[in-house]
């Protein structure tokens, strides 16, 4: 049996029915790693020995009916900014090169309770700052569809691992598109949940008001099942929500006929690759053909999304990254004169260029004299953007856009022009500013064989619309439906 052809849910189902052992699933992943990892470099750390030991434990746990998750026994990869107890967690940064967290992130505890098997930690842009996984201090990850191209970022390692079959599922984190954009570039499905749905405890913070952990998988059903595992209230994260509607994998029968989709027309103006645009328009045609209503509308705040996002994200990053001072944990410069020199050298040597750029930008916009002109203004802009989304959701069930304006760039191309790289986040950042849920699903390929992603944005809490099943569609179920129609599944 070719286990690689199975989705996570199918694998778990076969395990449950004893057609496949937990060990078989783990083996199939390590076979792929053996075959592809030297080229892809999705992982920073692989827990081979531990995964096999854990497989036996889970095998027994399943026999004892210990887990009530439909994903028990499934191998999963974890982005390296999520703390796993007693294992290095580096954020792909030199400054955390020797950091070993003494505790598990909330999501890791949940994975373990669900009987899932952690394969290792995946590569990423340093501190999740970047859109290509090239800012990692530990080497680049290559796109499994074309090794000359980047996998996207910052969760590039997680998405590449799923795309290469080096894991059935992966956890990523999304601050401005870091799950959705690499999912689009690697041809997998990735979901950014509503802010507060998944605990951020143990996720090393980049921008606390925007960060959210989310699932990456082969299709929406897998993502929904994984989201169900990791979602839930955590009293130790004060931004964690108490939601009673986290049965994301529940079926929803509502058809697509009459559903209203809105497309911000500003999203389709200059800068959009014609091939991406064509694939996106084709997706719209499919939807219309199925009886959905697709309309274009104007999103006037579009041009302010990138500036507002980069000001807010950098401001928060500059504060969050202050803790890396060489005193409490992580890297410390070998030679220094006094305390301030130690700070300076530690941070100069420990952080990479992109991280430094954002710390500087964030420090600048929060400085007295500039605070009102930049940070405060960005917050006001964020409110205006939110108001426009609220208005849009009064008219439409779901908003649609390409996930990114282009397909995966060639290695090395983006770092030359950071401004161009920031502009590539145009369709994804507003979702984080507004705390909305959004999913990226594959919707075609360009002539180089590089995948194209379709982004669907729901209103808050609309990952699953079971709260109002009569009026609104189930988000993942809808995506799965779309996915089947679009031939990506």
């Amino acid at each position, binding site marked *: 049996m070719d286990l690689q052809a199975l989705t996570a849910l199918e694998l778990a189902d076969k395990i449950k029915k004893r057609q496949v052992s937990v060990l078989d699933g783990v083996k199939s992943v390590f076979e792929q790693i053996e075959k592809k990892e030297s080229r892809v470099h999705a992982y920073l750390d692989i827990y081979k020995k531990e995964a096999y030991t854990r497989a036996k434990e889970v095998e027994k746990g399943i026999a004892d009916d210990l887990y009530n998750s439909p994903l028990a026994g499934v191998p999963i990869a974890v982005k390296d900014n999520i703390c796993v107890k007693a294992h290095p967690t580096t954020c792909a940064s030199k400054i955390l090169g020797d950091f070993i967290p003494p505790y598990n992130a909330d999501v890791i505890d949940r994975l373990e309770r669900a009987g899932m098997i952690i394969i290792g930690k995946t590569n990423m842009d340093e501190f999740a700052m970047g859109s290509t996984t090239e800012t990692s201090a530990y080497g680049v990850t290559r796109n499994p569809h074309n090794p000359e191209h980047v996998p996207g970022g910052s969760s590039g390692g997680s998405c590449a691992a799923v795309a290469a079959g080096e894991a059935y599922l992966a956890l990523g984190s999304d601050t401005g598109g870091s799950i959705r954009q690499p999912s689009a570039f690697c041809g997998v499905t990735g979901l950014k949940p509503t802010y507060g749905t998944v605990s951020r405890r143990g996720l090393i913070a980049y921008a606390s008001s925007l960060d959210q952990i989310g699932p990456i998988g082969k299709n929406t059903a897998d993502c929904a099942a994984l989201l169900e595992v990791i979602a839930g209230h955590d009293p130790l994260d*004060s931004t964690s929500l108490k939601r009673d509607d986290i049965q994301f994998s529940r079926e929803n029968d509502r058809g697509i006929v009459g559903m209203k989709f809105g497309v911000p027309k500003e999203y389709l103006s200059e800068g959009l690759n014609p091939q991406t645009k064509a694939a996106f328009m084709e997706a719209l045609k499919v939807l219309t053909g199925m009886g959905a209503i697709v309309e274009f509308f104007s999103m006037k705040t579009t041009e302010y999304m990138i500036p507002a996002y980069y000001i807010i994200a950098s401001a928060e990053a500059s*504060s969050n990254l202050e803790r890396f001072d060489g005193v409490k944990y992580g890297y410390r410069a070998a030679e220094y004169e006094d305390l301030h020199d130690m700070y300076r050298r530690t941070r100069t040597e420990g952080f990479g260029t992109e991280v430094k750029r954002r710390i500087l930008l964030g420090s600048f916009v*929060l400085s007295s004299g500039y605070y009102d002109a930049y940070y405060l203004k960005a917050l006001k802009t964020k409110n205006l953007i939110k108001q426009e989304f609220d208005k849009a959701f009064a008219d439409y069930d779901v908003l649609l856009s390409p996930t990114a304006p282009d397909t995966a760039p060639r290695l090395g191309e983006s770092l030359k022009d950071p401004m161009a790289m920031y502009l590539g986040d145009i369709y994804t950042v507003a979702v984080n500013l507004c705390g909305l849920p959004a999913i990226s699903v594959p919707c075609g390929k360009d002539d180089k064989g590089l995948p194209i992603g379709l982004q669907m944005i729901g209103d808050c809490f609309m990952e699953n619309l079971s709260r109002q099943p009569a009026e609104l569609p189930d988000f993942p179920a809808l995506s799965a439906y779309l996915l089947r129609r679009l031939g990506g599944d």
Partner: protein
Amino acid sequence: MEEDAGKLIHDEWEDCSLVDYNRSGVPLIEIVSEPDMRSAEEVIAYLEKLRHLMQYLDVSDCKLQEGSMRADVNLSVRETGGSLGTRTEMKNLNSFKAISRAIENERERQIELLEQGKAVDQETRRWDDNKEYSYAMRSKEDAKDYRYFPDPDLPPVHVSDTWLLEIRKAQPELREEKQQRYQEEFGLPLYDAQLLTESRCFAALFEETAVLFGNAKKTANWFLVEVLRLMKEKGMEAEQVKFSPSHLAALLDMVEKKEVSPQNARKIFAEIFDRDAEPRSYAEKNGLMIVNDTGLLKDTVARIIDENPEAFAELVGGKDKVLGFFVGLIMKELKGRVNPADVRETLKKQIERRKTQETQEI
């Protein structure tokens, strides 16, 4: 509200300041007053009031020395009726006395400057209580840009009127309310009520004992005399006093029923205070109970009289002062296990009998 970063310790070593991280992460609330205070006395009164409030609400033990309460003093001087002058901020004030001294010192320093025609610089100064002197730490010019902004990890807390009402309802009795009640319910004078409520745990100990014993006034006396005396002798704070109120209440009951003499009661209480001894069993074990053995008392009185014939002759002869000498001797002999009144009574009977005997012999 913020998290305590730690405490700087300056004056204990000559050449360096050290950081005490024991309080790191402990919640800290900063209260900023208006420039309303005009003297060191007013500042201390304000701080005392705050301290009592915080202690009674169980927010903090408010120990300046340990850093669980800290005060920075902003001070400026002006001519009567003039507008407020340039202020300085004084840090490193580790006791109310230090605050008082620092205020006096800074007031004089600023007046001196102004009288010399110089200006007061707006700056932060550090008080050295050993040298009774302050010096400038940093001026406004090199003020840090902290780049503060709303912390996204701390969502806004909405304090509703209903919530406030609930908190007010659940709030413990405050010091002034307690004092009022002690005066009304227990008939204690204000001064006693103030002393008893100086610390929340001292008041709690008193109240529990008073309720168990049933006589608040006598309990109050015991606390104000005996408990305070032992605390002073041993240099203890009220929070360190740990005896069971039931033990003291039982002891007071024994005194009331004349089962122990007041002297022995003090001895027993010392044991309760030190190691929370159970008073009755301790008294019995150590022979401190009053015994109602009239035979023993009679015999002892007779023996003491026989041993001191001259003194007794004086007593019979009408020298009443000698009575005290005999009572003391007998009490000592019986280790306080008898009632002084009984001793006196027995002695008088003996005197009467001797007198009669003497008359008959004549």
